């Protein structure tokens, strides 16, 4: 049984805490930590290690895993708090989380702009100012700064937090709906996702004409799935009852993902039935191929934390520590990825440079997690 929710657990194996005042290492934090490391690597385009992250072996990548696990841990929080909170209290408690994320997005964006500007300044290369969709900031600052505050302008690779902010702003409604009509959450979320894929609606970006890289109307579905899996729900009960079959099915999906990657099979958007978004592997719209793949990964690898804890304890503790402090580590990790892009630009893109930037990155991400917990203990 899960120690927080007192309900059947399917992915929440925990062990005693070693560091006083922190959550004991557990499966959710462990995989969140894993997703954070992979996001850090994936956001350094061209780095050698990027070729070996799990996006190369199937349709989904760590962004799906990260958002699913965010929903999962959100459920633990809601279940713990909701006993003492009114619906209105719950509504505002969850809504305030969106504000924290919004402030974090603004802070890391400003630092990212400074990193890009410093790289251009030191290397005396104005072309760097175009990196990662940053041209508007330097070329059209009047509109771009309004866009940054309105979240309608995102730097490349700094577009996950805007999604997360919108999703967190939706969570009060989600939690209240779930409290009132638990059975309605999944169909409502599915209907919004399906309608989004059918009509291809998305939020616009401005001043750069385009659309959000992570479409919140589509991505809310995976947050809701994580939220439902994180506690008692119909899908949790099915997953627990048919655990062996779920794992087998997950294994099959993972194997098919591997095969598709090996054969370089990707549906051609021009040659699929209408509406095309139901049949292609598109990240913006979290299309079925990507969704099914990440659910397959969870079904297959879920529960393997116990194995890692037994056979590779330092790794299990390390990733759990990162996952426990996911917002801080994510923010620092995003800035480290951008700094790594600058370092590779300045030092060249050899394997030694790649090893160096990854080691420094992991060191600083773990330092961030350690300092966050140290500060929490001081309080």
């Amino acid at each position, binding site marked *: 049984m899960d120690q927080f929710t007192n309900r059947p657990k399917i992915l929440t194996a925990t062990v005693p805490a070693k560091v006083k005042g922190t959550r004991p290492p557990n499966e959710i934090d462990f995989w969140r930590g894993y997703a954070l490391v992979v996001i850090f690597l994936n956001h350094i385009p061209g780095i050698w290690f990027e070729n070996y992250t799990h996006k190369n072996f199937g349709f989904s990548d760590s962004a799906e895993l990260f958002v699913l696990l965010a929903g999962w841990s959100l459920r633990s929080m809601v279940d713990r708090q909701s006993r003492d909170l009114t619906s209105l209290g719950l509504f505002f408690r969850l809504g305030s989380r969106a504000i924290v994320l919004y402030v974090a997005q603004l802070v890391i964006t400003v630092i990212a702009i400074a990193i890009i500007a410093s790289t251009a300044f030191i290397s005396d290369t104005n072309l760097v100012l175009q990196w990662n*969709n940053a041209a508007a900031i330097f070329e059209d600052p009047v509109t771009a700064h309004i866009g940054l505050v309105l979240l309608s302008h995102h730097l*490349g690779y700094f577009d996950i937090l805007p999604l997360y902010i919108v999703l967190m702003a939706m969570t009060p409604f989600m939690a209240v709906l779930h409290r009132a009509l638990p059975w309605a959450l999944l169909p409502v979320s599915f209907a919004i996702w399906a309608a989004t894929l059918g009509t291809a609606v998305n*939020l616009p970006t401005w001043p750069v004409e385009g659309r959000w890289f992570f479409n919140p109307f589509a991505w809310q579905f995976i947050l809701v799935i994580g939220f439902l899996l994180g506690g008692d729900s119909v899908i949790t009960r099915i997953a627990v009852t048919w655990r062996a079959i779920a794992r087998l099915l997950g294994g099959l999906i993972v194997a098919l993902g591997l095969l598709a990657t090996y054969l370089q099979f990707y549906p051609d958007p021009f040659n*699929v039935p209408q509406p095309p978004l139901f049949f292609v592997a*598109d990240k913006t719209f979290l299309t079925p191929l990507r969704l099914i793949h990440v659910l397959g990964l969870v079904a297959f690898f879920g529960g393997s934390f116990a194995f890692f804890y037994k056979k590779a304890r330092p790794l299990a503790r390390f990733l759990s520590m990162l996952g426990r402090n996911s917002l801080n580590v994510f923010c620092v990790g995003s800035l480290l990825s951008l700094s790594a892009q600058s370092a590779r630009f300045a030092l060249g893109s050899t394997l030694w440079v790649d090893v160096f930037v990854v080691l420094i990155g992991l060191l600083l991400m773990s330092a961030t997690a350690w300092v966050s917990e140290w500060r929490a203990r001081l309080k």
Partner: protein
Amino acid sequence: MARTIKVKMLALLAVFIAAPLSAFAQAPQDGAAAAAPPSVSVTNETPGVPLTPQQLSAQCAVPTSEIAAPAPLPATIVRLEGNQPLRILAIGSSSTWGVGATSRRKNYPSQLEAMLERVLKTVPIEVVNRGVSGETAEATADRLRIEAALLRPDLVLWQVGTNDAVQRVSVESFERTVSETVAQLRKKNIDVVLVGLQYTPKYARDEHYFAIRDALKRVAAEHNALYVRRYQAMEHISKTKSNLQMMADDDFHLNDLGYQCMAEHIAHAMTANLFVRRRKPAS
């Protein structure tokens, strides 16, 4: 006090969340393939479109042979002859977004839209801009495939190559990416105009820059796609009209006049081809 701040922050957040949503509500649903065509008033006197090629202004004048080689635009012809709205997807990197222009209305897709509306008088033209700065061909190709499947444009303008050349993408990889994508678009009966590399004295002796430029030319020839020789056209202007300032302060991107010339050259290349086709249907 803390509570007041929290409430104020909540109100601010609500405004920030609501603003893009309301902008979205007003914006055309460019993702919807079946969306209604843009409502531009049309004086539909006779079927077909009176065509005269885009005239070049004195500042932007270059010999026609320096701009583009003739290539068919069959999908565009069909739309124009049916007097149906023309949807153009302009995709690429900073030169499509308009780095160096004083405003978004001065980037090349906006200027091109106005020019085409003047030349193709009775047909509503919609140019959708999907320029993302700093992007190489591979990243743009990923966006292009899905954007084209959703927007169903009649013609794609793909400005490509400069970032690949500067970022040292291998010629083989660049050529393969562009060629595969153009083949997919052509197969779906979407016209393709490849807009070539930026002219800049900085890279005038760079072998890789020229290798990428030649690769793009090969791809255009292989698929019989219209190729706008942006490098040659701008080089011609810079050498024959050295008193004109075409470049932005960074000495790499174009300024408003530079983008005007780029738009004029593309508009000329497109309309000259349509004009030739209409006069000589057998060709």
